C-alpha cells in the first residue's frame, strides 16, 4: 500500500524491542517505538510483559538455595595453598 502512514508495526516492534530496551536505537527509532506504544494496547502490554519477564529473571538468583560448595572450596583452596608452599 502506498499510504505508509506508520513506520513500525506490532510485528516489527516485537523484533526490535530488545534494541529499544538496551538503548541501542537511534532517537528517531525510539520515537517510532514510543509513538506506536501510545496507540497500541497490545504492544504496550507486550512491552510490560517483557519488563515483567526481566524482573522475574532477576528474582531467580534470590530464590536459589544457598551454595553448599563453600566448605569443599575452602578445603580445596587450603590443599592447594599447602602444596604450593611445600613446593616453594
Amino acid at each position, binding site marked *: 500500500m502506498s499510504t505508509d502512514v506508520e513506520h513500525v508495526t506490532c510485528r516489527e516492534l516485537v523484533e526490535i*524491542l*530488545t534494541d529499544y530496551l538496551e538503548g541501542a536505537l537511534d532517537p528517531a527509532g525510539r520515537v517510532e517505538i514510543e509513538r506506536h506504544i501510545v496507540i497500541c494496547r497490545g504492544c504496550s502490554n507486550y512491552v510490560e510483559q517483557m519488563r515483567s519477564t526481566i524482573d522475574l*529473571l*532477576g528474582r531467580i538468583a534470590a530464590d536459589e538455595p544457598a551454595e553448599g560448595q563453600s566448605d569443599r572450596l575452602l578445603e*580445596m*583452596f587450603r590443599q592447594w595453598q599447602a602444596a*604450593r608452599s611445600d613446593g616453594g
Partner: protein
Amino acid sequence: MQPVATPAGRPPRNEDERALVAALRRGDEAAFVALVQSHGVSLQHVARTFVRDAAVAEEVVQETWLAVLNGIDRFEGRSSLKTWIFQILSNRARTRAVREGRSAPFSALLGDSGDDGATVDADRFRGEDHRWVGHWAAAPSDWSHLPEQTLLGRETLARVRDAIATLPPRQADVLVLRDVDGWEAEEVCEALGLSTGNQRILLHRARSKVRAALEHYLSEGATA
C-alpha cells in the same frame, strides 16, 4: 549468598584486580573467598546451561576454581580476571557436557541454528490481506491484572527456570549473566567473546522465549 540488589562480579578497577591476583598468588584465603563470592553464583548458573545436572555443574565449577588457582601464576592480565575465569569455565563445561553425553534437550544441541528468527508466531499478527497488516490479531494481555502472588509466586519462577533450561546454551549464557546475575552488556561480551550486536541478538531471542513460555503458563489457568 549475595543480596539480589548487588549485581555479581562488577569488574574491580585494574589496581584492585592486580592486588587480588597478587594476594591469590601469595595464598591469601580471604582473597579467594572474596573472588568466590563475586563470581560463584554466576559460574554455577553458566555451568548449568551446559550440563543440566546440578551436581555435575557443581563439579565443573569446583574444577574451574582449581584450574584458576593452578593457573594464577600464568595469568597475564590481558583480559580481566573475570573474563579469564569464565573462559576456563566454558571450556571445562563444554568438555564435561560432551563427556556426559549431554542429556540436554534437543533444542540445546541445535545451538542457535534452531531459530527461525521470528520471536512471536506470525499467526499472532494480521496478514497481508488485512487493513492492519502486521498489527496484533491476538494481542497480549495485561499482566498487571494478575494477582501479585501469581505473577511473583514460586510456580511462576519455576516456569522461568524451566524455560531457561530449554534455551540453546549461548542464549542461556547471555540471559543468565545479563538478567539473572545483572551483569552489564560489556562484561558479558568480554566474558563470552561476543560482539555487542551478537550479545543483543542472543539476549533478544532468549528473553522472547522466556516471555512466550510465561505467557503460555499464565494464560493456561488464568481466570478472566
